């Protein structure tokens, strides 16, 4: 058993053990959950230590036959992109447990059990190298999130939970159809083997086939991202979920979609992806602007952050479909940034809710007076989310915009509007919640950060600054992988888009 398997299966084992803890001792469930998730995080840091940053290849590969007919393997491995996403999941899970410590009193045992199961599903999604296994994890991660929203959410939780489940399910059955179709063509689910067949020309899809398969995968991913106009489940799910659910949903689950596009859609169906790119980019830009405009008018903090996610994820999709090295790097970096900064936003909004029991902006005001440290933390997060230089989002947005400018300058012009708008809605919210007259309710109920909450906020802020100031710690392995993906999208495709960093282009040319 290598370290990657340990990191994957530890949350599952922890989940099974958590089920055995008696209901009468919720504290034991909490302690167990935090211990297990911190252990997972520490082990995943070990992955980072052994990770070879100089290559785009898959590392820590495990390939065990699972089912013989059809030939399904338990195949997992990590590359420079998936490793960061796994770390993001393992980093956020303990923080989510901490923010739920007091907020979740009802059925605490099940709550933490589901959170651990969710962690297992999410890590699995990012590691699976067998299309079938990928689908399994994709669906498995759905179930705990469904319960997290449906049981511990706010008033309209049931509606939101069911909508979330059905939207994802509808998309994923299309993906399943495509996966089975590919299997029938290739007799394998192994993703590396399929890519290998494609690049060596042993397998080729007709343009029509490629388009349909691409769409089947893409719609499943686009629902998860969510790409305008498939985003309508997101505001409901984010708003109704408990704080920990919102954090995991926004920070990690949405990345399942963008990761899927990057890891599966582009290399498997390069020419369809390029053909559809202009349309998708238009949808992404609509999402950026529409998400920002709708966020501006929200009276509810969580809904505002939720719509800001639609806007931010639009940047990620734009970056991916710019088909430039910078755009792809920026997209991946933005995936991580969004995880950190929006995760932090939802976490701190959760802390506010715990105190004031309201998400309405109008119920707040003057929080900065009552809770200065909390306000400072929120301010830093807000600025990060807007894209202030030296904080993380700036790097990602800059790369995405530059990448898209290389592809088509008009895209950049429209997308930049979103950056401006994000400053408007975030700062305006900050102003209404934290400044102004101190609301009497706020004075009575809102107190400053406690030790446990410091433990949540500090790691977030450290990451925001680190990722903003020294992106070199994170980007090089990402760049290796995105360059490879970019190469793979040039298989069977006439050269149209030249990127500014032709790292592997010569190799691709030679291959052809």
């Amino acid at each position, binding site marked *: 058993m290598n370290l990657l398997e340990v990191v994957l299966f530890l949350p599952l084992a922890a989940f099974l053990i958590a089920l055995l803890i008696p209901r009468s001792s919720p504290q034991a469930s909490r302690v167990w959950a935090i211990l297990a998730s911190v252990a997972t995080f520490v082990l995943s840091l070990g992955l980072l230590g052994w990770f070879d940053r100089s290559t785009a290849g898959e590392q820590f590969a495990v390939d065990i036959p699972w089912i013989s007919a059809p030939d399904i393997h338990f195949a997992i491995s990590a590359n420079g992109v998936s490793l960061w996403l796994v770390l993001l999941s393992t980093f956020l899970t303990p923080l989510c447990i901490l923010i739920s410590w007091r907020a979740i009193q009802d059925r605490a045992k099940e709550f933490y059990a589901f959170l651990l199961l969710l962690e297992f599903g999410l890590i699995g999604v990012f590691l699976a190298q067998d299309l079938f296994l990928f689908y399994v994890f994709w669906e498995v991660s759905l179930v705990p999130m469904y319960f997290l929203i449906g049981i511990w959410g706010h008033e309209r939780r049931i509606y939101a939970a069911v909508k979330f489940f059905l939207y994802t399910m509808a998309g994923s059955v299309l993906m399943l159809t495509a996966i*089975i179709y590919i*299997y029938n063509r290739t007799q394998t689910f192994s993703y590396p083997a399929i890519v290998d067949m494609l690049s060596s020309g042993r397998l080729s899809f007709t343009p029509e086939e490629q388009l349909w398969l691409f769409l089947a995968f893409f719609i499943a991913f686009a629902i998860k991202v969510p790409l305008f106009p498939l985003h309508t489940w997101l505001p409901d799910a984010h708003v109704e979920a408990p704080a920990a659910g919102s954090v995991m949903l926004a920070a990690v689950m949405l990345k399942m979609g963008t990761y899927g596009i990057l890891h599966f859609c582009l290399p498997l169906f390069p020419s369809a992806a390029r053909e559809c790119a202009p349309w998708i980019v238009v949808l992404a830009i609509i999402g950026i602007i529409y998400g920002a405009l709708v966020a501006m008018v929200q009276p509810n903090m969580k809904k505002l952050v939720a719509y800001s996610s639609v806007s931010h994820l639009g940047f990620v999709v734009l970056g991916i479909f710019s088909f430039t090295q910078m755009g792809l790097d920026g997209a991946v970096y933005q995936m991580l940034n969004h995880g950190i900064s929006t995760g932090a936003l939802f976490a701190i909004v959760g802390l506010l809710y715990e105190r004031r029991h309201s998400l309405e902006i109008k119920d707040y005001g003057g929080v900065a007076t009552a809770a200065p440290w909390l306000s400072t933390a929120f301010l830093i997060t807000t600025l990060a989310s807007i894209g202030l230089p030296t904080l993380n989002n700036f790097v990602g947005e800059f790369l995405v915009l530059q990448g898209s400018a290389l592809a088509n300058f008009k895209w950049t012009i429209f997308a930049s509007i979103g950056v401006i708008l994000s400053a408007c809605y975030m700062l305006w919210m900050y102003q209404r919640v934290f400044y102004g007259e101190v609301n009497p309710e706020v004075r009575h109920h809102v107190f400053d950060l406690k030790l446990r909450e410091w433990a949540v906020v500090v790691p977030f802020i450290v990451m925001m600054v680190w990722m903003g100031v020294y992106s070199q710690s994170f980007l090089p392995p990402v760049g290796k992988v995105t360059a490879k993906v970019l190469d793979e999208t040039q298989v069977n495709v006439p050269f149209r888009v030249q990127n500014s960093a032709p790292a592997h282009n010569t190799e691709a040319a030679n291959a052809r």
Partner: protein
Amino acid sequence: MPANPTFNLDDLIRFLPEIILTVMGTLLMVLDPVINKRSSKAFGNLSLLALVAAGAAAVFAYTTKAGPAFGGMLMVDGFATFFRVLVMVVGILTVLPSYSFLTRQEAETGEFHALLLFSIAGQSIMVAANELIIVFIGLEISSIASYVLAGYLRDDKRANEASVKYFLLGSFATAFFLYGVAVIYGCTGTINLTAVRTALTGQDAPSTLFVGLAAALMFVGLAFKVSAAPFQVWAPDVYQGAPTPVAAFLSAGPKAAAFAVFLRIFMTAFEPIAHGWEPIVWGSALLSMIIGNFAALLQSNIKRMLAYSSVAHAGYVMVALAAAPTTPNGGIGAAMFYLAAYALMNVGAFAVVSYVSGRGERSTSIDDLAGLGQRQPMMAAMLTIFLLSLIGVPLTGGFFGKFYIFRSALESHLVWLTVIGLLTSAVAAYYYLRVLVVMYMHEPTEATSKIDPPSLGLRAALILPAIGTLFLGIFPNWVLDFADRSASLLK
């Protein structure tokens, strides 16, 4: 038919499961007046014993004496053994929750168990039959016993309605089937499936009109038995009215047996005219999936909902049947796997319903499950597994069932059927989720608070299929390998 049908010991061993069941059934009838009903679990125990013994006998017969029995009237092959064991398992899972159910309804009799055993004996004959007349005999034994079982709670008006409806429509269906048999005999002069096949492929093949007519008539009869659209109208009323353990049994046992017959007749005898019946099966599959899943959305009674869901699941198996002629092993193997997975998850789900339904089966609305997750977490967790499996979430048997079926459908280029089928299964997620919502996300009502802890039998009836469902979802190979291998023996 052989000229000199002599018995020999081997034939008796091949027929042993049916013998055990019939003997025990008769014994139970005789013991009925003798045993004290109030305090005794003897009936249940005896029928469990018989079912386990019959299951073992079926395996024994296959491992030692596989082959045709009684001059080719029965065929003890892997296919038959698979379904024999399956119907025995369904029987066991019906008997287990019926202990507490019958006590609660104050209706403990030997009659119930005897009828159940007869019905299973009939199904066991059906699945091993290699001659149309034997199919018919098995079908009748199975059906007549189940008509009575459906009306077993004779003071219940709905049970009576269910029984009469099931009987009337069922008799029609069997009559259709018998007509089909008659026509085939008229055309080909034989009722042996293999011989029919030979006759259809031979030089002087009979007129396609008549063979088509016969196939169509049999299709109607069998489609009724498996509750595939457009012959599904009886299912909701019967499942709702019948006592819950019986409804569980009807939705799994007779259905699996009828599908076994379906596969054997259409893939052995009528395979040469597959191009003719494939579109019909295709249409029926599509209709069943659409009608079943959409009608289930509107139900508030959980038994009715499960009835419509069983129509939809019949549709999925029909997809496999439609794919079978072009991908023989894949399609049949997938159908077999699906029926096994479906039997486990559906019987399990019904067992939970029988547990919460209360005296006189008053609480069978979905809302009566409110807060079950808090009051009886174990029960709720088991039902969750079954429902997730019915939705088709990975790591459950239901998922692999669907996966294998739609894979063979895609292999046969039934792309649209696959896409529509999978989309309707996403629709289906809605009504299954509604049960989960009520169980976990609604506050417990008085009804759920009053539920007693489950009895031992019931617990076994839930845990066994739950383990089975998860096992099929994580290690599907064991069953699938066997299904695939036995599917190839068909012709």
